[in-house]
């Protein structure tokens, strides 16, 4: 039986999936996705090239463009830009709250997004990653800058642990991850902050 974490908070039996911090430049490179367990309701994960699985992500960037699509099944697609690239986000009728939020936000605006990334393969073999939103909230620049720091730290932590965890090993094997490339990405993202 799992005892409580000493000196910390005891853990629930079923834990909510934490929202990982990942730059668009890294999420774009992800290909591996899998389901943990046999059940239909088991969580699905994307394996990040820096070696961590994520079921949910938290990102803050600039909403640059939004588009309403569909007739009976109305949904929104939008682009959110961070210092390293673009996230493609969407919210449909199964995410009514996020959809209403996007509808009310005028681009451009800083937004904080919580959502689940999905990998899609097009018939011609291209891979698309889109984030199905749980919430999209307009925020200020301070929150965006704070996120860049948070995401930079999380990415560097993953690079430092690359190859030392089962997911880290798998990432090295599947993606042949070059840590220097991702360090450079982090460096450039941080450099834009100080400007």
């Amino acid at each position: 039986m799992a005892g409580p974490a000493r000196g910390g908070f005891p853990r629930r039996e079923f834990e909510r999936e934490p929202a990982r911090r990942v730059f668009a430049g890294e999420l774009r490179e992800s290909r591996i996705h899998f389901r943990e367990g046999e059940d239909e309701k088991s969580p699905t994960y994307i394996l990040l090239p820096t070696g961590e699985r994520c079921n949910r992500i938290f990102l803050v960037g600039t909403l640059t463009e939004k588009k309403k699509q569909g007739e009976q099944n109305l949904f929104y697609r939008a682009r959110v830009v961070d210092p390293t690239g673009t996230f493609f986000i969407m919210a449909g009728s199964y995410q009514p709250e996020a959809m209403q939020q996007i509808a009310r936000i005028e681009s451009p605006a800083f937004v904080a997004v919580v959502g689940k990334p999905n990998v899609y393969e097009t018939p011609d073999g291209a891979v698309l990653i889109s984030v199905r939103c749980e919430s999209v909230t307009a925020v200020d620049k301070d929150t965006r800058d704070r996120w860049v720091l948070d995401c930079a730290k999380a990415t560097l932590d993953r690079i430092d642990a690359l190859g030392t965890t089962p997911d880290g090993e798998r990432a090295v094997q599947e993606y042949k991850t070059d840590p220097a490339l991702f360090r450079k990405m982090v460096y450039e993202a941080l450099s834009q902050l100080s400007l």
Partner: protein
Amino acid sequence: MDYSDTADRISQKVKAKGHEADPAKIEGKLRRLVEEFGVPPAEAERTVMSEIAREFSLNGLGTAAGEEKSLNSLLPGEWATVEAKVVSLTSAPSPAIAQSGILADTTGAIRFVVWTKANAPILEDGKWYRFESAVVDEYRGSVNLKIHSGTVIREISRDTVLSPRVTPIADLVPGIGSVKAKVIQEWDVTHDRMLQSGLLADETGTMKFVIWKEEGREQLVPGKVYSLYYAVVDEYSGRYSLNLNSATVVPEEGDIPVSSGDTRFTGALVHIAPGSGLIKRCPVEGCNRVLSRQNYCPVHEIQPGFNYDLRIKGWLDDGKVTREVLIQREVTEQLTGMSIEQARELAENNPLGMDEVFLRVRDRILGRYLSCTGREIDFRMLVNSCDLLPFNAEETASLLNRAGGSS
């Protein structure tokens, strides 16, 4: 009969002392003693054990008949002979149990159970006994001694004074523990049979305590310091609590420094749950439950008069773990800049009613970085102070160094 388990156990113990013992050979010896000579299995185990101990001149393996073990060396699944003092008797929870309580010696303490079927003599609190061939078992994660019909009990005279070792609260594990702690909170009694419950604290942490109604049991005084000897540390779904019914309670003079039990957690607010914002509470004295939209209290039914409250239920996430937080009125007012009066006015004058308050609260703090301080209760962090985390330019420099460093 199968002897391999016993043989394995013996060879493990010998191995732990740095010698090799062949389980097959041990098994042969056991089989011979039991099947050819009619020795009871427990006695056979002891005999083989002591033979090996002599062979390798080992001490401490001593399970030879007549040689007893200390309480802190007992392992589940063993048969044991111990000499110990009854330091506490608790009411037996079932007719199958004649007596239960706590035994102690100079090395530690252990819970014990005397089966009704054992026909054992009644044990008296404060007396020393020798228990031959009792069974060591595990119950709810802690070691426990079972006294059955094969156990030989003899009262012995000892004048050893036992001074139980006091454990810091943060280091308690399920079983028996003694603490020196201060009563920092008294909680509402939630059960007819409960005498008192609340929170104990020392310098290292806090733990819930409970005392059940029983003759001779008295309530603790909030704010006072006590030495509590031989309390039972229970575990329930990952959380520990102290049952004081078995404990010897000694009031102490003066005060001790205590941990507030508060922890700090920093992360992004990634979700605000329904039931956040302006809510209505049941006005019945002592109820305070949240009313549904129809002003319905699950216990007191429709309540036309009600009290407003303002709160945030949500999830704070640092990218590694996510924690449920419950932010109460004052902190919610300070975070959102909306007082409960403003929230009430907004709700009463807006077509969306209380939903409008929810939406405004959400738009002001969802997705923001917060640093919260509070106490954990039932897996939730009860937040008593919370601040928006500002952007820190110095961190940029150190992260740039990290990223540009060893590439």
